[in-house]
């Protein structure tokens, strides 16, 4: 088994990593200019922070039950965090909560424009109609 000192150091490092991620997420929320950029800041503690802190708990309490529950938490979080991000991002794009002047390229609006020219309005809930011709402006 690993000695108590080493275990303590590992715990401290992992907790500090997680704390740093939460801190960076908070500052990112303050500093970033629009919803989509803030989403990027938000996904960080959700994944790396939680994994680091879960590892810290597992190091301090190495039983099968703990491992199992931590695995479940991480799998759950890893599956749901992208879904949340995608739902929020899509709602943000559709309700124009983004600053287009900060985008250096926007291929989604290209395909939406083309779809509108084809006569079909973009479906509000499903995916926008497929681009017909070549890859957008790529």
């Amino acid at each position, binding site marked *: 088994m690993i000695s108590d000192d080493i275990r303590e150091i590992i715990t401290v490092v992992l907790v500090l990593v997680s704390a740093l991620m939460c801190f960076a997420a908070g500052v990112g929320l303050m500093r970033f200019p629009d919803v989509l950029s803030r989403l990027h800041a938000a996904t960080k503690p959700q994944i790396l922070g939680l994994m680091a802190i879960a590892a810290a708990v597992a190091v301090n309490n190495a039983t099968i039950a703990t491992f199992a529950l931590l695995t479940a938490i991480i799998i759950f979080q890893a599956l749901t965090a992208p879904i949340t991000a995608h739902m929020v*991002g899509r709602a943000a794009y559709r309700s124009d909560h983004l600053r287009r002047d900060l*985008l250096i390229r926007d291929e*989604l609006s290209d395909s939406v424009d083309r779809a509108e020219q084809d006569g079909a309005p973009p479906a509000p809930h499903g995916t926008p109609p497929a681009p017909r011709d070549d890859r957008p402006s790529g």
Partner: protein
Amino acid sequence: MSPESGGRRISARSQIVLFCGLVVLWCLLWGQFTVLSVVSGVVLAVVISLLFYLPAIDLSGRINIWHTAVFLVRLLVDIARASLDVAWLVIDPRYKPSSAILAIALDTRSDLIMTWTAEAISLVPGSIVVDVDRQESVLYVHVINVADDDGLEDFRASVFATEKRLVMAIGSVDDVWRVNQPNELTRSVRRGRN
């Protein structure tokens, strides 16, 4: 939502795999693998799959352990590296916001691979899937902190690399063939089909 593509049939094997996944998740939640938790897990899995019927997904039935491990390890490394990148970006006082939304046409035709690719690139901080075009397998990805076209093409290449690792791990034989072709070839073939 979108119209159905592919058949309604689902092989018994992939159904069993998914069912076992539910039971294992239940056991993980309890933190024990006793007879009681397995039996209650099986009962609950039956009830859930009857009550909350979802569109059938078809596993390819092929899995490569080595490539799966490569995919998972690489995903972890990517997450760690990208997290530090974005954390640095937050603190960097010279940060000038500049992002982009890219349309990325994947090679695969499978819903499952597309979903997992989207999950994987959304999990890595710095890129989020904003919208999906299921018929054409196009992901619309929002990327943060890209300054020029080179950065964009680098990112596009990294998404293709993720897709390729994933297909090598659990994709069907057809998809493996597809990702091993030069990208331009398979994509133009698919565009022509429509």
